[in-house]
């Protein structure tokens, strides 16, 4: 792909755990185009999070390479935003101070910081909570704060690692809807990891399915559902249902394999 923002080429990653070599990623190949929303689904423990750590540059690869706009990623790449599963909000900062943190790091003047942070906070319905500390916010609110804290400094590529994983089902759908709205405004390139197939299809332009460990890409599937999408009724969509059935068949094998076979009996 000529206009790939991110090109993952034969990426491998091994770990040593209690003296044993564990192969987390067994040669991942993936290209992500400018402005694309790509989701990656896979059974738990397939190395999805590891892949994002490698792309962000927080962790070195043990084989293969990651190219960001043609240049190999070595060390932390600050053009890449990373929304982690744990919200990791700084508990000593108020909501506003947390959201404004990246701007503070870039030495944006205080008034502008405040203006931009408050605008972002209002956009996700957290107005009036600017002065609250993280412990005073619910899980859903914290996760929204976590996402806008990355959106605010406008990174060119955004990695998201199961950002809605710890949330309850209703809150999840609402936040998915909110995320899609925000994304439609900016059309940033997003790589989004999840183990939830519904979420993977509902959000994505393309869904990549990963195998059980050592993880490799099993298939990449375009989602031909027009945007803007109605997340709340996506189940009724015929395209959605067919893709869901197809991907679940692929995924089921991997989930069983990844479980070490104890599901086979059922």
């Amino acid at each position, binding site marked *: 792909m000529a206009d790939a923002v991110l090109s993952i080429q034969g990426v491998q990653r091994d770990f040593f755990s209690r003296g044993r070599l564990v192969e987390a990623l067994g040669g991942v190949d993936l290209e992500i185009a400018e402005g694309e929303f790509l989701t990656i689904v896979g059974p738990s423990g397939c190395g999805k999070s590891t892949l994002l750590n490698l792309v*962000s540059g*927080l962790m070195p690869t043990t084989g293969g390479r990651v190219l960001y706009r043609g240049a190999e990623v070595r060390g*932390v790449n*600050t053009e*890449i*935003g*990373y929304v*982690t599963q*744990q919200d*990791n909000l*700084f*508990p*000593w*900062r*108020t909501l506003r101070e947390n959201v404004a*943190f*990246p701007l*503070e*790091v*870039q030495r944006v003047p205080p008034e502008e910081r405040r203006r931009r942070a408050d605008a972002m906070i209002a956009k996700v*319905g957290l107005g009036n*909570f600017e002065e*609250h*500390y*993280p*412990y*005073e*916010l*619910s*899980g*859903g*609110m914290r996760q929204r704060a976590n996402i806008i804290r*990355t959106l605010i*400094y406008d990174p060119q590529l955004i990695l998201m690692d199961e950002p809605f994983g710890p949330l309850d089902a209703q*809150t999840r759908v*609402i936040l998915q809807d909110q995320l899609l709205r925000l994304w439609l405004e900016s059309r940033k390139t997003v790589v989004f990891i999840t183990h939830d197939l519904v979420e993977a299809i509902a959000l994505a332009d393309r869904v990549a399915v990963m195998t059980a460990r050592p993880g490799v890409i099993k298939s990449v599937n375009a989602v031909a559902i027009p945007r803007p999408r109605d997340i709340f009724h996506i189940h009724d969509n015929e395209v959605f249902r067919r893709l869901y059935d197809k991907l679940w068949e692929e995924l089921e094998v991997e989930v069983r394999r990844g479980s070490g076979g104890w599901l086979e009996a059922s």
Partner: protein
Amino acid sequence: MAGSVVRAAPGPRGPGWARLNLYRVLLAVAVLAVWEFATDRWVDPFWFSSPLRIGAHLVEMVGQLDLFRDLWVTMTETFLGYFAGAILGVLAGLVLSRLETLARVLDPFIVALNGIPRVALAPLFIIWFGIDIKSKIVLASTLVFFITFYNTFAGIRGVEPAFKNVARVMGAGERQIFLKVILPAASPWIITGLKMSLPFALIGAIIGEFMAASKGLGFRLQLYTGLFNTTGAIAVIFILMIMMIAFNAILNRIEDHLLRWRPKTPMGGEATEVH
């Protein structure tokens, strides 16, 4: 859809604060009343004195200038020792937490130094620094130093790596990470160290005055016990107790402000360390 929002628990002056203090006063009064009642009936006041006698002695002492001189001397020793020890302890903690190898090399030496009983060192400090307040300040600061040092060191080592990574991904440099992430994340530990070590500053000053001094509350305490004046001795102990309560109240207030981002404890921020 606001979700469940947890609001801050009432602060130290929230509802229940007045009642709590009432109970405290009642407890103190009850203990003193039992003591007073027991005196002359079952207990000889020569050994244990009595609250009324101690009260009278305190009033008498307040009328004398010597008491304020002694109070002033002890407080000067305590505070100078505290600040010297705390500043050096926090600085050493900050520096060593960044220098892995040096920290490992120094570890057994620090353990050994901290293990020396200060009572054993007090006479040496008096030989080295004289019987004036200098030796007491040094003694107090050695007690404060290790507590603040260990807390700072452990606090910085314990900072969640995820916090540092978040900042790093957002483009923060090492300096910014240190100032904006590591220091605030470690601050509860550092503040706990600062709080825990204050009583030890007072203990250091008093021990020093016990060894050799010509003024100070410890000197006065020593003097009274030498004369078998239990009333005077216990009166001085009361003054020390009141000083400690006052110091702690000030520190609690500062802590509540600095750590306002933390969920309040069931004690409502009034929790005090037990030594």
